[in-house]
C-alpha cells in the first residue's frame, strides 16, 4: 500500500467557467510533490477533459446551481488519484464513449477525443456509469519525481 500524503475534495456547479478553476486546483494540489512540468501539463489536460465531459454531457448542458460536479484528489509520494463524479444522466455504453472520435454532440463541435486524451495523458482510467445514475471517472497519474 502506498502511503497517503494528502487529500482534498470539492464540489462546484457544472458551469463552463469552472473548467479552468478545476484543472488549476488539481495542478496546485499536485505541486506539493514537485512533479515534472510536462507531466503536470498532462494532468491538467486530463482533468480538463473529465470535468468538461461532466459539464457538457452529464446535465445536457444545463448550467444550474443544482447540477454539481465533485472532484476528489488523493496524493501519494509520486502518484495522484483523481475522481470526477457527476450526478447526471450517465453513459449508456461506456466502451463506445471511450472510442476515439465518438461523440454524442457533434453539433456542439465536440471532437470525441476527451476519453482518448485522458487515457493517453494518465496511467490509469476507470469509468463507472449507469444511465440515470451519474458518472464516476477515476484517473491515476504516476509522476517520475522524488524517486
Amino acid at each position, binding site marked *: 500500500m502506498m502511503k497517503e500524503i494528502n487529500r482534498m475534495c470539492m464540489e462546484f456547479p457544472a458551469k*463552463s*467557467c469552472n*473548467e*479552468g478553476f478545476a484543472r488549476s486546483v488539481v495542478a496546485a494540489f499536485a505541486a506539493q510533490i514537485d512533479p515534472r512540468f*510536462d507531466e503536470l*501539463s*498532462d494532468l*491538467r*489536460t486530463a482533468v*480538463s*477533459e473529465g470535468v*468538461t465531459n461532466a*459539464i*457538457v454531457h452529464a446535465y445536457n448542458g444545463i448550467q444550474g446551481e443544482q447540477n454539481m460536479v465533485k472532484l476528489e484528489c488523493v496524493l501519494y509520494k509520486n502518484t495522484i488519484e483523481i475522481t470526477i463524479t457527476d450526478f447526471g444522466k450517465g453513459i449508456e455504453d461506456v466502451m463506445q464513449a471511450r472510442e476515439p472520435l465518438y461523440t454524442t454532440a457533434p453539433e*456542439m*463541435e*465536440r*471532437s*470525441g*477525443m*476527451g476519453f*482518448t*486524451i485522458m487515457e*493517453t495523458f494518465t496511467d490509469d482510467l476507470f469509468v463507472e456509469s449507469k444511465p440515470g445514475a451519474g458518472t464516476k471517472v477515476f484517473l491515476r497519474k504516476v509522476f517520475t519525481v522524488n524517486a
Partner: protein
Amino acid sequence: MKFELSKAGTFLIVRIGGELDHHYCDIIRNRIDPELMEPPIRNIVFDLTGLTFMDSSGIGMLMGRLRIVQAIGGNACLICENKNVLRILEMSGVMRLFNRCKDIADAVRGA
C-alpha cells in the same frame, strides 16, 4: 484567455493566447463565425503562439472553422510553437488538415 481578430485581404487572422478550453471556445466561435460570412474573407489563420493550454474542446473549435472556410473555398493555417498544444493537435490529426506556418507573414504569403 487572450483573443484578437484582424483582417488582411481575404484572411481573417485569429490570435489566441493563454488557456483555451470549452468555456472560451464557445466565446471565440461566436466572434469568429460572423466575420467568416463577410466577403472577401475566405481564409483563416490561427496564431496560437501565445497559447499555453488547449484541450479537446479546442480541436472541435478548430475543425469547425476549417469546415467553414473549406465550404467557401478557402484555406486554414495554423501557427503554433507550444509543445503541449502541438501534441494535442498532432494526436487528433488536426495538424495534418491545416497548413502549418511560421508566422502571419508566411501564412498570408502562401495564399
